[in-house]
């Protein structure tokens, strides 16, 4: 064999050239990207049907996606140590914006969520979904893990402010997601199972007791409180129609574009929060399982990348982002199929809408950044 450096054959030159476009150099994880692209494409298909073949909505969503992928690639270029550096200031800025939104925020759909800067409008609560796990990861990065009780208490303090501020808007869905991002980060930080289980069990044990002591109208109010802004017509109309949509899908569904529940508008919010019902109606159990499998694979890939991360900040951040991502999907699906109360959590990467999409994709960008900016060790 010739010495490689002397080899000037065509193949070798091509290989050398190809190495310039190697994914790592672009800080992109190819497998994660393929999964993201397939999931968003599946999402577009479902949305096309859910929107009654509305080209305007599809156009906008494609625009959202392009922007989101661009932001993801951009986020992937920034090395993780920068994120670690910026974490506290980013968090404090977002927190200030969250307070500002309560005062000068713009009202939309009965809630004060938006901040408008000229043509730019954004939701600080969505930003908080990134800022909070970054902050907590920063906070715990240099501490020995598992964290001590004192550190846990501090974490709880950091967590509680943005959750309450978001819930006050009111945006219960996002508040839950922010809380979840914090809790999942602590889980990965090694918080003892005893604490997790005791919290969970006291919660589960006291909830029915509370429920038992409530009057009928209080129960109704409680249900309404769970979702004050998305269910103004009250009662179970949403969930009934959603269950009908999913249930009528059967094994293989009614076929793409043939769902009657969504096409004839019986299904409420069928492009946003209830879009999974459209999938259930048109693609049946097989389609639903496929979507779940895609989500699961995506999650698995992210977790794997987390285990490959080299420092505490990276690991915790990846863990929190990916677990929050999959849980938000499960909460949405659980709500659509009637095992969770209706809260405004969209199905990530599939529901129509820009803000959540951008935040999720930036999250994936950060994960890719962490993975592709690793220092090389010699064995």
């Amino acid at each position, binding site marked *: 064999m010739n010495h490689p450096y002397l080899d000037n054959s065509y193949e070798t030159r091509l290989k050398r050239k190809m190495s310039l476009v190697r994914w790592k150099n672009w800080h992109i994880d190819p497998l994660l990207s393929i999964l993201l692209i397939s999931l968003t494409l599946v999402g577009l298909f479902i949305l096309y049907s859910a929107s009654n073949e509305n080209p305007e909505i599809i156009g906008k969503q494609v625009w959202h996606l392009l922007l989101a992928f661009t932001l993801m690639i951009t986020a992937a270029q920034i090395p993780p140590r920068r994120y670690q550096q910026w974490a506290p200031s980013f968090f404090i800025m977002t927190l200030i914006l969250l307070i500002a939104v309560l005062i000068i925020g713009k009202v939309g759909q009965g809630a004060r969520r938006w901040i408008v800067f000229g043509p730019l409008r954004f939701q600080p609560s969505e930003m908080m979904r990134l800022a909070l796990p970054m902050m907590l990861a920063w906070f715990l990065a*240099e*501490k*020995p*893990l*598992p964290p001590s009780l004192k550190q846990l208490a501090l974490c709880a303090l950091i967590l509680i402010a943005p959750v309450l501020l978001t819930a006050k808007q009111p945006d219960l869905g996002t508040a839950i997601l922010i809380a979840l991002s914090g809790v*999942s980060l602590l*889980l*990965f930080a*090694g918080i003892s199972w005893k604490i997790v289980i005791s919290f969970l069990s006291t919660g589960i044990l006291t909830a029915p007791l509370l429920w038992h002591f409530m009057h009928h109208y209080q129960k109704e109010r409680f249900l309404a409180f769970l979702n004050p802004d998305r269910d103004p017509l009250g009662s179970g109309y949403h969930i009934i*129609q959603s*269950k*009908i*949509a*999913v*249930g*009528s*899908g*059967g*094994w293989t569904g009614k076929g793409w574009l043939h769902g*009657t*529940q969504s*096409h*004839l*508008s*019986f299904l409420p919010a069928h492009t946003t929060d209830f879009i999974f019902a459209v999938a*259930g*109606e048109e693609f*049946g*159990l097989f389609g*639903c*399982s496929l979507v*779940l499998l895609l989500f*699961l694979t995506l*999650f*698995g890939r992210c*977790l794997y990348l*987390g*285990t490959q991360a080299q420092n*505490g900040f990276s*690991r915790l951040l990846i*863990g929190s982002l990916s*677990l929050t991502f*999959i849980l938000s999907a*499960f909460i949405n*699906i*659980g709500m659509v*199929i*009637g*095992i969770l109360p209706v809260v405004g959590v969209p199905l990530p990467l599939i529901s129509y809408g820009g803000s959540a999409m951008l935040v999720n994709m930036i999250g994936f960008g950060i994960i890719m950044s962490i993975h592709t900016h690793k220092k090389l060790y010699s064995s």
Partner: protein
Amino acid sequence: MTKPLTIKNYQQESHLFTQRTIAVFCLVLLLTATLILRLSYLQVIHHKMYSTLSQKNVLNIIPIAPNRGLIYDRNGVMLAQNIAVFSLNIIPAKVKSIKNTLQALKKIIAIFPHDIKNFNRSLKQHHPFDPVPLKINLSEQELAKFYVNRYRFPGVVIQSKMLRKYPLGEEVSQIVGYVGRINANDLSKVNQVDYSASNYIGKTGIEKYYEDSLHGRVGVEEVEMNAAGRIVRHMKRTLPQPGNDLYLTIDSRLQSFCEKVLGADNGAIVIIQPSTGQILALVSTPSYDPNLFINGISHKDYETLLKSPGHPLFNRAIRGQYAPGSTIKPFIAIAGLDSGAITADSKIYDPGWFRLPETKHVYHDWKPYGHGWVNVTKAMIVSCDTFFYRLAVTLGMNVIDQMLSRFGFGNDTKIDMPEALSGLLPSPEWKRNTLGHSWYTGDTILTGIGQGYLLVTPLQLAIGAAIIAQRGAYFQPHLLLKFQRPDETVMAIPNIEEIPIVLQHPQVWDIVIHAMQGVITHSQGTAVGFGRHPPYTVAGKTGTAQVFGKQRDEERSRMNIPKKLRNNHLFIGFLPVNQPKIVMAVVVEHASAADSLARRISDFYLKNCSQQDDPK
């Protein structure tokens, strides 16, 4: 105090993280399994239920109302028809601004404030894709105006609806009746599916009696509807089956003429073709305009009708129960002759009164000093009361009841009209049971001249007369001649013959009919008003029934008492005598001249109507 030494153990933390990752992944797998289980529960186990629910959401069955059958008289004159009325409707979902549309519409079509008020009210009760009526019953001019300007009004539509109309109005309302809005009570009596699209149901008369035949069968259209109630797709359509067209036995010309003849008097006229039982005219005055009822009569109009002294809603021809007066005498005579209690030659002397042996009560004849020697023929011609007082006593109530019952008195006439009454044929048992008194011979005596407890309807009188005219043949009276199915096949209604009256002495018919002819032609005959010498043969019998007072002798100064207390005047008759074409019963309340009315009707019938009725 020494700060606890905190050394980061990177190896161990990495290990901890991997452990947690595995745990979390297992947890997520568990959650996924939960979701899949739940999905299977919905999509596999309960698929059928949700599938049905989803179908129910989407598929709507819209009923289509059948066209109600039309009603004609025997000659094809329209008595009840359906006319299309056009209404102006707005589909809210298709109109940009309802306010602007209304403003623009106002400029071409007269829209009144109450129209807008009604519109606003019904706006709230309709789906946004349903047309909401703004103005009903557009005139042809308005319709044309709108169609010319239609391009300016997207979302404004004209809808047509079938409305029942009775062109002859009050002349035939007592027979045809009317339709009205369906209420819950009506719905409980019919097949509700069939009426799911119908607006009207027969309320009285023929419209009620032949409701089943007139209504037709509902049609259905299966449509796909969206959540807003808009029809997205038409799937399957089953056309409604229209109702049958009915041809009545009525001759509307004769009917109108009878109505005119009665004029302002309250009364009833029934004309029957005796050989078939077909009713040619059935008049009750005063009458009412049935068109008032179709869209729901206003409270005021209804009040007026109810409080009107003549009770226009009351059908005297089938529900008016009158004392027959002397018109009962031919039937009593038949009972007497046939039972052998008297013969054609049996004579009595009439001093002008009758008294039961060993009693004090005197029954007066209508003629103060009596008719002298009378046999049964003369007794009928001059309407001798004394003869029939005595005959009634001789016969006894049982024999009288038996014979009258054979002529249909006190029985259901079986006419094809709702709510006909049966009159009252009194008997000792009846009196004991209802009044609690025992029967007196006096009651029998009064029955002999058609007073007392005996009550008959004009229709029953006509039937009785028809049986005499036919010498015992008895046909059920009916109003339906034939009906035409939607496929144009015609079903004639057969005449139904009841058990004929077979007398032991058939010559009795001749005696009675001859006597009834004498009523008209004999110089002493009571039917003075009919005219002594009509150019055709007629048999008849007059009657005067007391309304006020019980005693004949109290009826002296007839014209001085208030009209409502005056006697009712009755006439039964048939012509021509040998082959009777018509039988009539005329009742005029509180007035005389029933016989002269009968003459005018007979003349009219023979001149205008009889040709068609001749068997061809």
